[in-house]
C-alpha cells in the first residue's frame, strides 16, 4: 500500500511517500498504525479539514482498503 502526505503533513512526518506492508485492511487501521509510530502525525491526520483520498477519490467515514491501494492525506487546499 502506498501512502502519500501533502502540504504541512509531509513536513510534519518527514516523509511524503511510504509503503506499508502488510497493508492495513481499513482507513481506520492505517491511521491507528501511523499514530502508533508517530503520535503527532496521527493527531494531525484526524485534525480539522484533513481529508483522505483512496485511489484518487475522496472518501469519508469507514473505508476498507485493498492491499494495492494508494491512500493520500490532504490538508486544507489552497490554490491561486
Amino acid at each position, binding site marked *: 500500500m502506498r501512502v502519500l502526505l*501533502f502540504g504541512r503533513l509531509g513536513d510534519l512526518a518527514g516523509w511524503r511517500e511510504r509503503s506499508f506492508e502488510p497493508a492495513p485492511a481499513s482507513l481506520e487501521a492505517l491511521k491507528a498504525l501511523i499514530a502508533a509510530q508517530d503520535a503527532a502525525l496521527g493527531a494531525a491526520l484526524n485534525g480539522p479539514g484533513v481529508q483522505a483520498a483512496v485511489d484518487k477519490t475522496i472518501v469519508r467515514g469507514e473505508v476498507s482498503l485493498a492491499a494495492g491501494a494508494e491512500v493520500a492525506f490532504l490538508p486544507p487546499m489552497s*490554490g*491561486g
Partner: protein
Amino acid sequence: MIRLTSQPFDPGAELTAFCGARTESGAVASFVGIARGDAGATTALELEAYPGFTEVEIARMAAAATTRFALHDLLIVHRRGPIAPGEPIVMVATASAHRREAFEACDYLMDYLKSHAPFWKKEHGPAGARWVEPTARDLDDLARWD
C-alpha cells in the same frame, strides 16, 4: 482546457489564443493571479499538486461551472512548483454569449480554486516558510455561490 505547468506562462498570449477563432461567443472575461512579494516578506512560493488528482478535480468543477453559467469554453492555467514574486500563478478565462455569465463564471472559478482545488501553497521568506491555508474570507467568498 485545463493545464498545470511548472514553467512561467504568458497570460497575454494565452488570452489572445483563447479569443481567437470565436464567432459565437460575445464575451470573454479573464483573471490573472500574480505571486505577491509582500514587500520582501515573501521571496518565493511553492505550490504542491497531486498529479492525476488535481487535474481531475479541477476538470470536475470546471464541468459544473460550464453547465451552471452556460459557458461556451473556459481556460484554466495553473502553476505548480516554485514561483517567484511577480510571476503569474493562475489564469482563468471564460467565454459565453453575453458578459454577465462570463464575469460570474470567472469569479466563481477563482473562488473555487482558492479554497477547494487540490494545491498546497508554501510561502518562503526571511522569517522562514509557512503553509498557507484558505482564509475565512476565501471560504466566505466561496459560500456566496451556494
